[in-house]
């Protein structure tokens, strides 16, 4: 954007960015360090930026008070299923909207896009009633089916369509001359090329499912069925106040693995999302 910066400007920019970083980085640091402090130290004054003594028993309490392993598994398998399911449903739909001529394609595309306008919060009351009638309340089905097929997958379909539109037509023409059917063209030619778009779909679908909060608290009622976000808020004392050290330990266990995966794969994360936006 600009020619080389002067050394003074450089220092100023680094300084500004370091100050701006505090609210982005410090909470995570505070979460991890406070979770290993003894309870008497977590509200200590002056605040202990680095723990002076450690208490690891907090972590065993996380598992004693709730079926935390089970809840972890619930969140993980739901997020995995939703991610894979959304990738399949939206890459197929996105491909068809971009590359196949079929009657009413535009009308149907507009109907599907309506899903972007209707956040799941709008339809939560009837969805609850529908799943209640189907006997699926306090099961994971609503948290799996609605994101894969309903409104949350529409954005993914839109991203996939925007990607498939940019593929050169010659690729497919050659395959057709070779006698490949539509599904084979999709699977053998289009889909492998769509890896960057699929990666960004996978990332935001996973995060969306991993973070769901309203739906679990509406649909789930027993501790073994809870997902992580819901479980974290359940570590409360007899008066309903949060048991801070235990909540922070459980929050650390929830946040850290995803954070580590992100740091390892951050190039794909950030660039994948950037491409999504550019073409949007």
């Amino acid at each position: 954007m600009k020619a080389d910066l002067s050394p003074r400007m450089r220092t100023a920019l680094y300084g500004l960015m370091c100050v701006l970083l505090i609210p982005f980085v410090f909470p995570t640091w505070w979460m991890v360090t406070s979770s290993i402090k003894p309870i008497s130290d977590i509200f200590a004054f002056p605040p202990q930026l680095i723990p002076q003594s450690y208490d690891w028993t907090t972590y065993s309490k996380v598992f004693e008070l709730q079926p935390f392993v089970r809840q972890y598994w619930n969140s993980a398998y739901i997020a995995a299923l939703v991610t894979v399911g959304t990738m399949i449903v939206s890459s197929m739909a996105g491909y068809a909207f971009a590359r196949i001529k079929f009657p009413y394609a535009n009308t149907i595309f507009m109907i599907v896009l309506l899903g972007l306008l209707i956040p799941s919060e709008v339809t939560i009351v009837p969805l609850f009633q529908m799943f209640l009638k189907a006997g699926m309340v306090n099961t994971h089905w609503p948290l799996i089916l609605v994101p894969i097929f309903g409104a949350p997958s529409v954005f993914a379909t839109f991203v996939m369509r925007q990607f498939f539109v940019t593929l050169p037509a010659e690729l497919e023409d050659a395959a057709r001359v070779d006698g490949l059917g539509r599904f084979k063209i999709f699977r053998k030619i289009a889909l492998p090329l769509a890896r960057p778009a699929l990666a960004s779909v996978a990332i935001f679908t996973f995060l969306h499912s991993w973070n769901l909060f309203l739906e679990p608290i509406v649909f789930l009622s027993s501790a073994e069925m809870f997902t992580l976000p819901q479980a974290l808020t359940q570590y409360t004392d007899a008066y309903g106040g949060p048991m801070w050290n235990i909540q922070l330990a459980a929050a650390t266990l929830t946040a850290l693995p995803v954070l580590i995966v992100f740091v390892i794969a951050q190039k794909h994360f950030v660039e994948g999302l950037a491409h999504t936006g550019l073409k949007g």
Partner: protein
Amino acid sequence: MAVAQENAYPEGRSLSPFWTIARRDSLAGFLFIAPQLIGIIAFVLIPLGLVFWYSLHEWNVLANTFTYTGAQNYLMLIEDESLVEVLGATAIFSAGLVVMNMSLALLLAVLLNQKLAGIAIFRTLFFSPVVVSLVAWTIVWGFLLQKNGGINGMLLMVGIEGPNWLREETTAMISVIVVQVFKNVGLNMILFLAALQGVPKELYEAARIDGAPAFKQFRRITLPLISPTILLTSIITIVGSLQVFAQIAVLTQGGPGLSTTVLVYYLYQQAFQFHFFGYGSTLSIMLFAIVAVLTFAQWQMRKRIVFYES
């Protein structure tokens, strides 16, 4: 018949007169979109119809009655004194969030667009809250914002006695906005950064030769050229701000009073805590109308604001 010809398709030329390429494509197209379309019908369109239907009824879950009352729930919207406060809180929350999010995202994107060593590390760190579990992020902020929590502890070290952030109306609203901004600003930042990198460098060189100061370059070149991204992100951010629920539920439960009760939280309370499913549905329709009007308005504005579209 059809099956036999499906097998014959690899030969390509030996198609029956009926299964032309166009017909095959139509069938394939419908099959490809079927899962998504059926999903939208089952989980979006039917529920939308139902929510409207429910909104015309008084629904007593305990007595198990469901009576048609026409527009009565909609009249209740006008008489509901809490709703005025709720809509006010929603407007302040959304406006504050969008303004803070967009300007911070733009500032960070401009900073990250500079040629500096190690800039990728800063990018990673600014983005990192996006991948931190939402409720975990909210819990640690709730912990920091306690009266004797980390933020007030640090303020006290420089001699300032901080407020009880989550228990006073103004600071509670500021807190929920700020927590949400830092959580998600990284997304918009990355979208802006990608847009900035797409601005042709020759334009800046030409402007510099003409002696245009940096601020003018930003206003006259950068902003117009990234305006499509600004429009897109502002739509996503506004619609997203109307869906914020977990942060409110964890940090303030809508309080103190109704000061942070945004529309989604109020809807949840009416429907799932007080079991007013009819009135809850009416509030859902209202939320839908607000989202639709805002999206439509912004889409209309693109003609005036957006400089060009790629």
